[in-house]
């Protein structure tokens, strides 16, 4: 058997491949992106893979394929499930034929997300069974079990890894690939959702989930280890932290590890309660296990004290860690000073390093140009999801709102209805535009709203590492499809003013934006230049120290990572600079010179 060192997400893709998945689809989003990317790399001719236009489309493509008997996986991040929730809720009632596994990566922290929502709660809401891995190895194995369960009970099944599992690496023993034959679609009323069918399906689902709760109680995935009156209930990555913290502190505990939070393994929980009098619950995001323990205890009159997030013993928000669990345990047992720092707290202020737009990023120019064009005007800038959310930070300070994918264009309309004397400007990236921006444009045109849209088109899905989309015409099957021309598309949407501008030409493009702002109705300026991660630069900018007066206009207006201070003057990091030329254009002393690279 071959062993490979794989990231959790890669392990999931390898498992999907070995399980004979016929169709894989998803929409990029940290921390889930590498699943589809890996599947596309390792797949063979028996399988199909795509980046769908958004999570709803991915869920529906997979649902259709699964109704035809194909094994399918769908991948997304937790907020992507909100987009896909419409098909999900109904699919739960209709069920599937070929195994369908929905992988939703949660992001406690959050590290790269808008919310700390918990897909376990979503599983309960949608009544869809869920597996919760605590290591990449478990994630790998769960894919096979999830497919078996899905096909046995004709239901989609969730696997919910969290960031630390998705992006943690471990050695994975790979299984042999199995072949899954597609049985084909059979016409039947069972695939058409109607109120009558939903009522019957609802009854059946509740019964099935009772059966599953019982089955999960005897499943090897949900375990009880250790003995004693003190118990810990945990799941996912928190289990790993608990194990290490207990070892550190030399504390004995009876541990209940929940790997299938929904349907909750009730009988297993009662077995756990048989011995323990007090339970601490360590879990990230919602107090999900804690609530279920309370429910089991209340229903069966178990004499057990359950402590966790609801009782204030465990932090409600943010990631858990070995240290946070260590602290909770030392507090709980009154162990006092056992966790003193080895290293004293630093007395000096550390460098502040918030994420920033890359040196040479075309978005910097786009923001700077719009800022110039709206100088002195009452303007509200609605941002969106992508690298360009970073336009929020100083000195650009050009993102006033950011809600969710595609919301910038529609929120700008609402802002304008409420405050018609303001210029309302929405920034949106190319991938986000295709995912959920287009309907917002139509809404604005139809309802005759006066807004300006700045489409920052960098020819990729940059924030998640550069995935193709309809604007690039490259597919995950290595084919080239018809390329969407943004100007044509917006023209077809009846936008009256559409112009393409260069984000690195400050004067020329400022004039274009000013023109767009004068248009009554919907206007769009497409700032088109590729993401700097996509190509190698051919020049850099160097400082003429004689000419530089140290006014630092370049540093304080652009916030470019390549620019820093060298005493009183500017210094340009030659390793970071891409020669985009923005700083040269705003230097009033001609002190910044281009340098060609060999």
């Amino acid at each position, binding site marked *: 058997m071959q062993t490979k*060192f794989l990231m959790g997400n890669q392990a999931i893709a390898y498992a999907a491949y070995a399980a004979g998945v016929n169709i894989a689809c998803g929409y990029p989003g940290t921390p889930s992106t590498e699943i589809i990317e890996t599947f596309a790399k390792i797949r063979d001719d028996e399988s199909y893979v795509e980046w769908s236009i958004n999570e709803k489309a991915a869920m529906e493509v997979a649902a259709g394929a699964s109704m035809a008997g194909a094994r399918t996986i769908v991948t997304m991040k937790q907020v992507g499930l909100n987009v896909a929730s419409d098909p999900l809720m109904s699919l739960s009632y209709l069920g599937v034929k070929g195994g369908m596994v929905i992988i939703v990566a949660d992001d406690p922290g959050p590290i790269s997300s808008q919310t700390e929502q918990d897909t376990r709660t979503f599983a309960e809401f949608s009544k869809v069974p869920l597996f919760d891995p605590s290591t990449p190895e478990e994630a790998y194995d769960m894919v096979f079990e999830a497919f078996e369960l899905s096909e046995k009970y004709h239901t989609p099944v969730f696997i919910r890894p969290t960031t630390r599992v998705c992006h943690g690496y471990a050695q994975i023993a790979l299984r042999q690939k199995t072949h899954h034959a597609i049985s084909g679609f059979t016409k039947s009323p069972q695939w058409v959702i109607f109120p009558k069918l939903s009522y019957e399906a609802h009854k059946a689902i509740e019964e099935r989930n009772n059966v599953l709760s019982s089955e999960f109680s005897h499943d090897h995935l949900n375990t009880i280890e250790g003995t004693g009156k003190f118990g810990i209930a945990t799941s996912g990555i928190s289990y790993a932290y608990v194990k290490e913290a207990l070892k550190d502190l030399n504390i004995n505990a009876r541990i209940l590890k929940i790997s299938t939070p929904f349907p909750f393994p009730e009988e297993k929980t009662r077995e756990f309660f048989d011995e323990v009098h007090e339970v601490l619950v360590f879990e990230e995001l919602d107090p999900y296990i804690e609530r279920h323990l309370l429910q089991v205890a209340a229903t069966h009159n178990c004499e057990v004290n359950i402590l966790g997030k609801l009782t204030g013993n465990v932090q409600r928000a943010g990631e858990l860690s070995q240290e946070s669990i260590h602290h909770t345990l030392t507090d709980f047992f009154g162990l006092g000073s056992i966790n003193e720092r080895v290293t004293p707290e630093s007395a000096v202020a550390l460098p502040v390093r918030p994420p920033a737009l890359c040196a040479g990023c075309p978005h910097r120019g786009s923001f700077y140009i719009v800022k110039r064009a709206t100088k002195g005007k009452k303007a509200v800038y609605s941002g969106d999801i992508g690298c360009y959310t970073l336009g929020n930070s100083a000195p650009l300070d050009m993102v006033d709102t950011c809600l969710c994918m595609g919301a910038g264009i529609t929120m700008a309309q609402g802002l304008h209805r409420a405050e018609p004397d303001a210029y309302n400007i929405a920034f949106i990236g190319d991938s986000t535009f295709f995912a959920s921006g287009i309907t917002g444009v139509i809404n604005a045109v139809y309802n005759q709203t006066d807004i300006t849209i700045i489409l920052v088109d960098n020819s990729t899905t940059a924030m998640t*590492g550069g995935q193709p989309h309809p604007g690039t015409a490259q597919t995950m099957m290595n084919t080239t499809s018809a390329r969407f021309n943004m100007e044509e598309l917006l023209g077809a949407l009846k936008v009256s003013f559409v112009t393409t501008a260069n984000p690195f030409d400050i004067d020329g493009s400022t004039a274009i934006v000013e023109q767009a702002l004068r248009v009554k109705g919907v206007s769009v300026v497409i700032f088109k230049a590729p993401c700097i991660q996509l190509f190698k630069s051919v020049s850099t900018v160097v400082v003429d120290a004689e000419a530089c007066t140290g006014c630092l206009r370049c540093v304080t207006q652009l916030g470019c990572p390549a*620019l820093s201070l060298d005493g009183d003057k500017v210094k340009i990091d030659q390793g970071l600079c891409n020669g985009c030329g923005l700083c040269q254009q705003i230097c009033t002393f001609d002190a910044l010179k281009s340098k060609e690279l060999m």
Partner: protein
Amino acid sequence: MNCLLTGIGGQGIVFASKLISQTAMNAGKKVRTAETIGMAQRGGSVVSHVRVGDGTVSPLIGKGHADVIIAFEPGEALRVSDYLAPTGVMIVSDQGVQSPADALTKKEYRIEEYLDELNHLPQQVIILSGQAIRDILKSSKVLNVALVGAACGAGKLDCSLEELEETIEVLAPQKFVDLNKRALKVGYDLAN
């Protein structure tokens, strides 16, 4: 063996982490690692955890548990210093990188303060001159590998220089194998 690597995106941390973990796996050991991926990659601090040996479940090293910290930047070294075990060793490149956010507020980057703090840690701290290593190797591309060599030279990586060299032969592009091997040796000798 717990090894924490830290620096700023683009300094070669992922490759250094791969070099250490692959070497451990070649020796038949169990390895877990974790990387920074996502928004934080854009100019933020990047940390990589490498854990070697049985009995680890978490990919993350707990505070006070790193046997060795390899830091590509002094400020970042200080940021993670509380991960270092009482008997741990820290390897630091002395080349500071000012952050754009600090440049903006015209806050000076005071490297001496950071190095001074690092020198006052109770644990062993080996500060290497990044410029000197570049001069010896006549290349600025392999400082990351030299720092891994230094961690090995300090006896903290749970592997030999020869084992690292064998891994390099597979991991590095063919024409850079010799340069990488020299970098390992230079780092090794500086810390041995």
